[in-house]
């Protein structure tokens, strides 16, 4: 049942690198990560690759497969034709460390810039009451496995290093949306922060992030667009603007 494929694997480090080509035998049911592991065990024992769960749950084995940001553990070899060349490269939006491993610390830095959940002062642990329907919107965003494929594909930063400083990226827009929609979070101006401090306005809704999300989170439709719309409402509607100055408004 095994089939033969040509693999082109990018090998190198921050100073530069090149493709190494190799022929591999692929068995039924295998994914790209299986092939990379076989190459590692038999031909290139020092081939650097990140992986953990091998079941699409941890978001470690992010790379670009034939130019598309993918999880290697969820990319089945059966989706390629026999004889096809499979090209594997590191994520393009982040600096290469070695081979298929990139420096994703940008994302951890951005995570630090999003203010944490602020619990209600008058509720003790155990006293929280929330309806299922009210937590579901935020739960969709909490499915995120932090594979950073959305960050990698986002053209605001993909080839624009200069935008990284002022742009948090789709992963953190859903984090902000998650907290914004959390029924008990006490910070009430998260949308405005997203717009003013995290570069929400730079996103022009091409939905590339939604397309690559392995968790099928509707990043654009359910997080980015609703935040953009409401931020516009508040900013440009004079009565709402006045209202927001007079008292803290909830759920806008």
């Amino acid at each position, binding site marked *: 049942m095994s089939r033969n494929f040509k693999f082109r694997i990018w090998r190198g480090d921050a100073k530069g690198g090149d493709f190494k080509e190799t022929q591999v035998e692929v068995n039924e049911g295998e994914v790209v990560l299986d092939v990379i592991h076989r190459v590692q065990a038999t031909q290139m024992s*020092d081939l650097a690759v990140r992986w953990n769960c091998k079941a699409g749950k941890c978001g470690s084995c992010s790379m670009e497969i034939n130019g598309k940001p993918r999880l290697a553990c969820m990319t089945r070899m059966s989706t390629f034709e026999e004889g096809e060349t499979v090209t594997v490269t590191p994520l393009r939006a982040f600096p290469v460390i070695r081979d298929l491993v990139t420096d994703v610390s940008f994302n951890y830095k951005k995570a630090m810039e999003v203010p944490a959940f602020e619990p209600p002062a008058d509720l003790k642990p155990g006293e929280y009451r929330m309806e299922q329907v009210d937590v579901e919107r935020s739960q969709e965003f909490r499915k995120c496995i932090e594979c950073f494929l959305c960050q990698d594909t986002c053209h605001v930063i993909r080839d624009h290093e200069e935008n990284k400083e002022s742009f948090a990226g789709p992963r953190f827009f859903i984090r902000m949306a998650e*907290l914004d929609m959390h029924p008990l979070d006490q910070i009430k101006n998260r949308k405005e922060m997203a717009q003013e401090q995290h570069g929400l306005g730079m996103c022009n809704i091409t939905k590339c992030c939604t397309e690559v999300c392995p968790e099928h989170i509707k990043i654009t439709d359910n997080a980015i667009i609703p935040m953009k719309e409401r931020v516009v409402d508040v900013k440009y509607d004079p009565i709402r603007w006045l209202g927001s100055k007079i008292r803290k408004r909830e759920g806008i």
Partner: protein
Amino acid sequence: MSENRFKYDVLVIGAGGAGLRAAVEAREAGLSVAIICKSLFGKAHTVMAEGGAAAAMGNVNSNDGWKVHFRDTMRGGKFLNNWRMAELHAKESPDRIWELESWGALFDRTKEGKISQRNFGGHEYPRLAHVGDRTGLELIRTMQQRIVAMQQKDKKEFGDAEKYIKVFAELTITDILKDGGRVSGAYGYWRESGNEVLFESSAVVLATGGIGKSFKITSNSWEGTGDGHALALKAGGRLVDMEFVQFHPTGMVWPPSVRGILVTESVRGDGGVLTNSEGRRFMFDYIPEVFKDKYADNEAEADRWYNDQNNNRRPPELLPRDEVARAINAEVKAGRGSPHGGVFLDVSKRLPAEEIKRRLPSMWHQFKELADVDITKEPMEVGPTCHYVMGGVKVDPDTAAAVGVEGLFAAGEVAGGMHGSNRLGGNSLSDLLVFGRRAGAGAAAYVKALDKKPAVTENEIARAKKRMNTPFENVGGENPYSLHQELQTVTQDLVGIIRNELELKDAIKKLISIRERVSKVKAEGGRAFNPGFHLALDLENMLLVSESIALSALERKESRGGHTRDDYPKMDSDWRQYNHLTKWNGSGVDVEREEAIPLPAELLELFEMDELKKYFTEKELAKGGK
């Protein structure tokens, strides 16, 4: 090569649930904390936990409470559990779950808006707090974000987010350093550069998780190499009851590349049934005597239980994991297995498709994408997979302090005792929280009480350095990948789910020869992000664990929980009196027997005498637990 040096009050090795919870606690006690992740921050194996966290909050059935949870845990572990750990765990789990909500966790809800709780194997009432079937992800993300919140607070107050709590991602610790009998720090390397790192720290919390990578078929990722088990042994600690390894009954069996990946027990908790190739719901044939009063012996009653738990016994698919794993193993051996050597697990006929996708989203996703199976329409094929080790570092229950080494603490899967001979599903996530917190508090109290900090000596550094350099100096040594496969084959085939004396002795002999070769393994290439080098160092840990399991398994001449001997197929109450302790002897490990601590009268009284008779000797019962 000179090394980076860092100084912290408390060093936490491992960034899964237990490690992060320990770090939070130690920081809250006012100390500086370093968190070591072998992977990136937020990727630890806790993310793989699916079903939920067991805590007797009583949100779904108000009859639940800590005493019921304690009883279930002891029954699941066949009464070999460290009773004090089981008691603390049952009492403290609800508080640990509730505090996660105040850190931003969003569990599924009941109609009253409380945290919803689901049924699971061995738990008398719906008890598992959950988020669909991705509860572990919720847990780890919540604590990851809690750490970030603490760093944000420190930044505001001190101008530096990492002043008192810092995450060291992709770093592996290879040695615990000591000053006399006390911990003085730890030594390791950055995976990225291969550069060496020295931590000076008077307290070290081991939270390194499991050992699955010693076996061929496992639900564990590459990280589960028993690092903490090995570090504790070499530092002078003891491992307790290493023979008890949990084979989760339902791992994927096909395609081969995903063999072993977990299929959550929630599938059964939510109505999934197990059938063999003849279509028979075979679990009814495997209800052990000790559980006959709690489990239905006919399909009609089992099916009624899902809607009326007060008047029906539970379906036998929800027996503790060891029972179900053995039953599946027996069906396959008898020739009644599925095409790829498992059995069928079917939820498609029990719930509407939309409900399956809502309750089990990641299972639906996993089977659809990896096996081309639509679980809303067809059955899954499943079989046992090495999932969890009940054995681990022997600790003081209240402080999580490792017995035998001052300044060393352990929590989570790396610690032993809590689960006895078999862990109930859902008890791991709550274990991480309860004992993670206790380890953080224990380490903090220890550091604060020290009058003089132990010092890192040059001798200790030299010892650690030497070990790290060996794989590069081994000219003509073996490839670590192939030796790892050989080790996995020995443990899988000879120390696996069903054991006997002949095979265990054979395994021990083979492990001795592998030991000689492990020390000569060769790493090709350079130091920077070199998985071959990493594996070369992890191999010895996996070997130590395998030896500990095989030797303990040979000693225990009975079958109990996660240890099944076909030459001693019965549980024997005399053996409940003993734990096995594994010790490092300078070149390998020795196993010795220790008397188990008897249950105090007030806990013994929680059980019916009829039930106790199944586990305890006449003599013990006559003494009334004294």
